[in-house]
């Protein structure tokens, strides 16, 4: 017995020693450590040939041209396209997300039909039949909402709506809506275009031009281009607004002013200009002069806005003495501004003689439309969606029988969320074409997911703010990942089913036709070696070789055109100003000053997966968002740093924590937008609160436009 035990011990001992002289222990140790760099549960990176293709960002309102890196044909990265005038190589955090959002957990994988509380997947054929039937029944009372400001898809959508008997085709409210209204009131056609590239003194009234206003990437490039690092800037930017936002952070001067007072400030500056002898032969000048001198003297303005007279005097002088001054007006959070402030701002441009000048403003013509019976963009922008929905909610307006919602999320992206939701409930049949399961899609009866921009044909025509007409192509560079279809095709298919003739069989034809129509526009050219702003500055525009246009667009170049449409004389619309702009007492209540940022996405995209990292912990911590007040306001409202508070407005309550941030005007509560989603995925859902829902909609005197620029809130 003892013997055996020892023998065994011997065997083991010998074996162990022997093993030491073999690869076993050493190779195993080595391979084990190699295994740790090759863990099966860690994804491998794709292999294959790399190439780059061009397209345009549709998710980002700034409309940047993109260069997409592909591996073995699959898109990998979205980068800026240096040869595209709206990108010049830059991309926003949002445009960067074009690729990975293909796989966003929030994507809708197939057409779906509501049954009860939930959705059941259906085939496209079933979907079309269902929709054809319901819409057929709804004839005469079909409304449509589009969140796409720049796409030709709107022509198909509005044409179809019209043929079905339109109860209204609306666009989601934006800077463009307000501007369009203002231009209409001033008696001009076309879309105001701002030539930042050639301006040397820019007065920004409210507009967050470097984040959410218009072609923000291009705006920033234009801004940076004339500011060589470390050297004296060749341009001057002055920002007027309630907070030192991303734009004001880099401007040479920040003039704190309530968003409600932007018009007052503009007219206050006008007073100085007029005093200095500025004049104009535009219609309504005398009335304008009277209005300004009547109530916008330095003291009136000081009383209303708290801005010292000398401040405005200096700005006025700077504008007057600048070679190419430019005044741009907009909402600090990209929506809700009345028409009057825009008119007031524009009248400064008129006093300075900046209309249709290099570095000034030009009224850009609309590109020819190709779908018969379609609404023009101007016509669409003329609609007032919030007013319409409020009407529906209160019963003043008959509720449409059916509603088509394209690239829009009204249940989240509109003010007075509570009211709007009620209005939507009143509409019996709703169809959403959203690619992501957003708040609105969740309310709809049919969800027919649109393919994402990288999977479909689409286009971007002159985004609002662009200083020139521009058209660039969005083209499919990858097969749809889910069972989705290009909404354009779906609508055209539907038209066929309802035997409505829209002239086209598929959306690609529409785009092709659109491009073909561009070749007929005189003065148009492809921006390659010569950029539109250079042409605006006097460089001769190269000729357009018609046949190559499609190829050029596919290659990522943009078709552009400089100069404005033939115009009747632009008027001051002074009567509107008289009614809408009042240098009254400053608001005593606490006013909400929302701010939006592209990194938190749009109401349509939700929070892009990668972007949560970009949100500072002074904006979102855990699941709570922060409001920003300066220490003075904090004291007045007895708020402490980090304290949890409840904001109330428009019959809605929102939770928030307090962040003390000195660059907010006293009495103002700055609040980030883009949070508080109830739909989408775990990157968006339940992260903070949607402070836009606190904003109550009011009607702007004079223009009748819905506005919610300076909502009052209660803090408890």
């Amino acid at each position, binding site marked *: 017995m003892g013997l055996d035990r020892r023998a065994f011990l011997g065997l083991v001992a010998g074996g162990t020693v022997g093993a030491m002289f073999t690869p076993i222990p050493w190779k195993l*140790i080595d391979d*084990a*450590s190699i*295994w*740790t760099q090759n863990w099966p549960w860690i994804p491998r990176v794709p292999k294959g040939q790399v190439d780059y293709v061009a397209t345009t960002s549709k998710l980002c309102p700034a409309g940047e041209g993109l260069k997409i890196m592909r591996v073995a044909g699959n898109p990998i990265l979205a980068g800026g396209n240096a040869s595209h005038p709206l990108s010049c190589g830059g991309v926003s955090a949002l445009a960067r997300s074009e690729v990975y959002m293909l796989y966003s957990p929030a994507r809708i994988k197939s057409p779906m039909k509501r049954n009860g509380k939930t959705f059941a997947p259906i085939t496209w054929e079933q979907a079309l039949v269902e929709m054809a039937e319901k819409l057929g029944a709804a004839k005469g009372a079909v409304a449509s909402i589009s969140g796409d400001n720049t796409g030709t898809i709107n022509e198909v959508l509005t044409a179809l709506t019209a043929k079905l008997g339109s109860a209204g085709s609306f666009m989601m409210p934006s800077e463009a809506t307000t501007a369009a209204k203002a231009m209409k009131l001033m008696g001009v056609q076309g879309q105001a275009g701002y030539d930042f590239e050639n301006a040397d003194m820019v007065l920004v009234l409210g507009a967050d031009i470097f984040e959410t206003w218009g072609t923000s990437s291009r705006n920033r490039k234009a801004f940076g281009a004339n500011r060589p690092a470390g050297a004296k800037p060749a341009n001057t930017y002055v920002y007027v607004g309630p907070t030192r936002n991303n734009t004001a952070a880099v401007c040479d001067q920040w003039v704190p002013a309530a968003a409600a007072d932007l018009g007052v400030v503009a007219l206050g500056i006008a007073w100085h200009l007029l005093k200095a002898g500025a004049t104009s032969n535009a219609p309504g000048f005398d009335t304008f002069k009277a209005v300004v001198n009547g109530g916008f003297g330095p003291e009136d303005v000081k009383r209303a806005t708290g801005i010292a007279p000398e401040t405005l005097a200096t700005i006025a002088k700077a504008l007057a003495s600048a070679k190419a001054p430019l005044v741009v007006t907009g909402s600090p959070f990209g929506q809700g501004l009345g028409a009057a402030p825009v008119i007031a701002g524009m009248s400064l441009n008129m006093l300075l003689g900046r209309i249709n000048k290099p570095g000034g403003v030009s009224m850009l013509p609309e590109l020819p439309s190709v779908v018969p019976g379609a609404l023009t963009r101007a016509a669409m922008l003329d609609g007032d969606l919030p007013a319409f929905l409020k009407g529906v909610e209160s019963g003043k307006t008959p509720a449409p029988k059916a509603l088509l919602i394209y690239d829009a999320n009204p249940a989240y992206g509109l003010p007075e969320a509570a009211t709007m939701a009620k209005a939507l409930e009143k509409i019996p049949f709703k169809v959403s074409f959203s690619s992501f399961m957003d708040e609105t899609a969740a309310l709809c009866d049919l969800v027919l997911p649109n393919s994402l921009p990288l999977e479909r044909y689409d286009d971007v025509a002159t985004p609002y703010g662009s200083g020139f007409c521009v058209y660039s192509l969005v083209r499919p560079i990858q097969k749809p990942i889910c069972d989705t279809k290009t909404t354009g095709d779906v609508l055209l298919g539907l038209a066929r089913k309802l035997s409505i003739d829209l002239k086209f069989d598929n959306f690609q034809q529409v785009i092709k036709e659109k491009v073909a129509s561009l070749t007929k526009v005189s003065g148009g050219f492809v921006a390659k070696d010569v950029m539109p702003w250079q042409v605006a500055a006097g460089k001769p525009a190269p000729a357009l070789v018609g046949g190559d246009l499609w190829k050029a667009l596919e290659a990522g170049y943009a078709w552009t055109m400089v100069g404005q449409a033939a115009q009747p004389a632009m008027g001051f619309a002074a009567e509107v100003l008289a009614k809408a702009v009042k240098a009254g007492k400053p608001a005593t209540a606490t006013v909400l000053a929302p701010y939006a940022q592209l990194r938190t996405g749009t109401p349509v995209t939700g929070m892009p997966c990668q972007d949560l990292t970009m949100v500072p912990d002074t904006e979102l911590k855990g699941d709570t968002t922060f409001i920003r007040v300066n220490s003075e306001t904090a004291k007045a409202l007895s708020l402490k740093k980090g304290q949890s508070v409840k904001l109330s407005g428009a019959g809605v309550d929102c939770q928030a924590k307090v962040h003390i941030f000195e660059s907010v005007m006293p009495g103002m509560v700055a609040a980030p937008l883009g949070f508080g989603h109830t739909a989408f995925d775990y990157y968006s859902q339940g992260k903070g609160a949607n402070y836009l829902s606190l904003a109550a909609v009011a009607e702007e005197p004079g223009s009748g436009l819905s506005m919610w620029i300076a909502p009052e809130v209660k803090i408890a």
Partner: protein
Amino acid sequence: MSIIEIEKTWYPEGVERCSLGKFMKWLGVLGVVALYGFFAMLVCFAYGLGVTGLDNYFGFGLWITFDLAVIALGAGAFFTGLLRYIIRIDELKNIINLTVIKGFICYSGAMLILSLDVGQPIRSWFGYWHPNVHSMLTEVIFCITCYLMVLIIEYVPLVLEQKQINKIPFLHNLAHQMHVVMPLFAGIGAFLSTFHQGSLGGMYGVMFARPYAFRDGFFIWPWTFFLFVLSAIASGPCMTVLICGFMEKVTGRKLTTYRVKSLMCKIGGTMLLIYTVFKYLDTWAWINDILPRAGLTFDQMFYGLIYGKWLFFCELVLCLIVPVICLLTPLRKKPFFMYTGAILACAGVVINRYVFTVQALAQPVLPFTKWEMYAPNWAEWATSLMVIAYGFIIMSLSYRYLPIFPQEVGLNKK
């Protein structure tokens, strides 16, 4: 013979031990703690270190603090070994075994924690295969692993002297032979140990972009290198005495003479005095040279309550001056003062290791960053407790079955 009887035959010659049942209960309690820690350990291995309270600001936390403290307090082993075998202070033979076991426990425990603390334990051998000779941590890895082996070699003969095992002639001889060469290992141990105690300090001293920890030094060694060695050999003997005293309390038996303990404390105290002198010089240079050079002030090194100055004064006054007085003056003759001194000395070293690990990282070097808080979570506490429980278990078993204390029999004659 019943198991109870057999178990009795394993005790060292002529001593009494508590009943097996009682002993089992004691082990059981410790076992539970150890198991809980073991579970935490598995969780860490399975899901990654995200389950801990560590973050990108505090890459080092409780674990590293624990390691450094334990290793410093374990230093009694090499230093006493040195004195006993090389300097030949014969009296220390009465407590040397205890220090060896303590050392073994501390180092093996530290190794355990370290294997947890690295994100890729399977790669830890890279430290040998792809060493960066400039890194203090490489030195630490070398020395600690080697020294652990030394400690094992020192521990084995103790085990072999167990009554039953010792009956086997081969093992008996082996034990004897090992005892003969022990001075050699004591020497090696002393060398290795000194070095990594130093390099542990060096680790912090070389972080020249961390003004809180950075120190100038001699040749490649920052002053912290020497300070850590000194503080370790100062607190090590004290810790041994504390353990010895604790064991006497628990077992109710006298294990060594007060003389021996007192001697240990005197040694510790002397080292502590030397350490104090240098520590004060170092602190002075830190405040008046290092910090100003970095554009920082002494006050900027402290913040709020947890990072407040009180810790600093605790370490440099309460835990240095006071114990020096307790341990080097006649006060030492009174157990109260001797133990208080020993406790304070050990506490001081722990504080020192903590501030160098945590406060050094919490202090914002970039002007636009702020102080951050660190709180260890259950996973870190549980695993640390596991090591402590493990130590108690080893110590209990060793005491019960191994002839650790030559004087025990004599001191407990009825």
